[in-house]
């Protein structure tokens, strides 16, 4: 297709600077294509251009989210509680399962469109309040203002980046007693800057992020949280459809995941219990 090869002609009356700009806008490669910030700096564009004025009033967290039309439904049960009496929203088993990469079909589109993930998550065994204050303490020296609303936070970058200020929404969910999942989503700004921000932030959050101690099976040192990891998974069913085969694999995993502190009797008992369940 002609447009994919940027094979087009401009009318002869276009100025050369206009033609140059259009060529850079109609660049089929999203990585080399001109950005909006660069367009605004372009000489031809700037002639006679009056920039719009944006009010940046102190809006509440809910208003900001509504404006940016987050596709996630908001967890209203947290907002309704009074300050201090709220608990993090719970994430039930199906919601947890739906965070799987295998169920996230938007990857099919993102890869083709050259997009990168706008969200990431980590788990923590620390109390939710501790998680919040740790994120706050880490993000503020990085040049981010913090707005809190129960167990949701908005981190606002003070510096202007490639696509304006970076804004990140953070939300904490309870998965199980003393196990929390923290989701971070970019709501404004450049996604690559968001990746950089998160990489820096997670270094500061090392104390609260809960990861497996045994990383022996993983090739890379710290997996990129935005790219699905491809470690040698303990779970590799030989046949796709049969639940029976999957169950065999399940037995292997559950034996592997019994906590190391357990005594050998407990381990044996747990192993037996799992086999029975299936």
């Amino acid at each position: 297709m002609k447009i994919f090869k940027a094979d087009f002609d401009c009318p002869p009356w276009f100025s050369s600077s206009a033609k140059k700009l259009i060529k850079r806008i109609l660049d089929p490669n999203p990585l080399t294509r001109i950005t909006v910030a660069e367009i605004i700096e372009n000489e031809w564009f700037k002639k006679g251009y009056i920039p719009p004025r944006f009010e940046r009033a102190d809006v509440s967290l809910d208003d900001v989210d509504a404006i940016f039309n987050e596709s996630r439904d908001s967890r209203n049960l947290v907002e309704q509680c009074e300050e201090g009496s709220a608990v993090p929203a719970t994430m039930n088993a199906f919601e947890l399962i739906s965070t799987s990469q295998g169920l996230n079909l938007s990857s099919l589109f993102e890869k083709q469109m050259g997009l990168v993930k706008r969200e990431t998550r980590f788990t923590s065994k620390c109390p939710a309040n501790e998680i919040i204050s740790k994120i706050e303490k880490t993000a503020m020296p990085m040049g981010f203002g913090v707005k809190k609303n129960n167990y949701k936070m908005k981190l606002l970058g003070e510096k202007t980046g490639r696509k304006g200020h970076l804004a990140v929404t953070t939300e904490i969910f309870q998965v199980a007693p003393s196990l929390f999942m923290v989701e971070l989503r970019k709501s404004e700004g450049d996604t690559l800057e968001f990746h950089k921000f998160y990489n820096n932030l997670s270094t500061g959050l090392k104390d609260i992020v809960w990861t497996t101690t045994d990383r022996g099976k993983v090739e890379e040192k710290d997996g990129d949280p935005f790219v699905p990891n491809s470690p040698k998974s303990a779970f590799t069913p030989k046949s796709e459809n049969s639940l029976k085969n999957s169950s065999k694999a399940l037995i292997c995993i559950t034996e592997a995941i019994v906590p190391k502190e357990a005594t050998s009797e407990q381990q044996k008992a747990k192993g037996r219990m799992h086999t029975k369940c299936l």
Partner: protein
Amino acid sequence: MGCFHSKVTRHEDPTELASQTAFIVSEVEALFELFKSISSSVIDDGLINKEEFQLALFMNKKKENIFANRVFDLFDAKKKGVIDFGDFVRALNIFHPNASQEDKTDFAFKLYDMDGTGFIERNEVKLMLIALLCESEMKLGDEIIEAILDKVRTFVTFLDADINQDGKIDILEWQNLVARNPSLLKIMTLPYLRDITTAFPSFVFNSKVDEVAA
């Protein structure tokens, strides 16, 4: 019009597919661009096989994942072991923001009912939880997994959804659950489908430009 015949496979006509789904013809054509890209990534035969699907989802054609397997099986409506363009469009139709809640609920139920028994059983949910945890490299003790599962059970019984108290979730109970907790269907909507023609310029638009230039 662009050519819709690849070397081996004959694809279903976009107008026909548009009439069967909520997509308009230009959107079906845009989906064809996506389909072409995925289906030619390992074997250029106009069909998406399991490896190509895995490559598209995980950027790793060898990555096995029980959820992706289930999605693949549901897309492969004719049970041929490959997804053709018609399968692709008809399945994605369910993920369109405007598709009915009923269709999305049904698809999600079939997704989670891994062995297709018509029930979502406790051991299936446990299997899925463990697979998810392996994927995220979380090692949780059995107590925590059981605690998570118990939450599902209380979730179900608390809502009086497990009407027959058999500890399994049937389609009616699932519909009930979803009606009260719509976030369970979050994975069933792909907002990208609304803007598919801007992401993948369609054949029709380009061929018109060609005619004018000629």
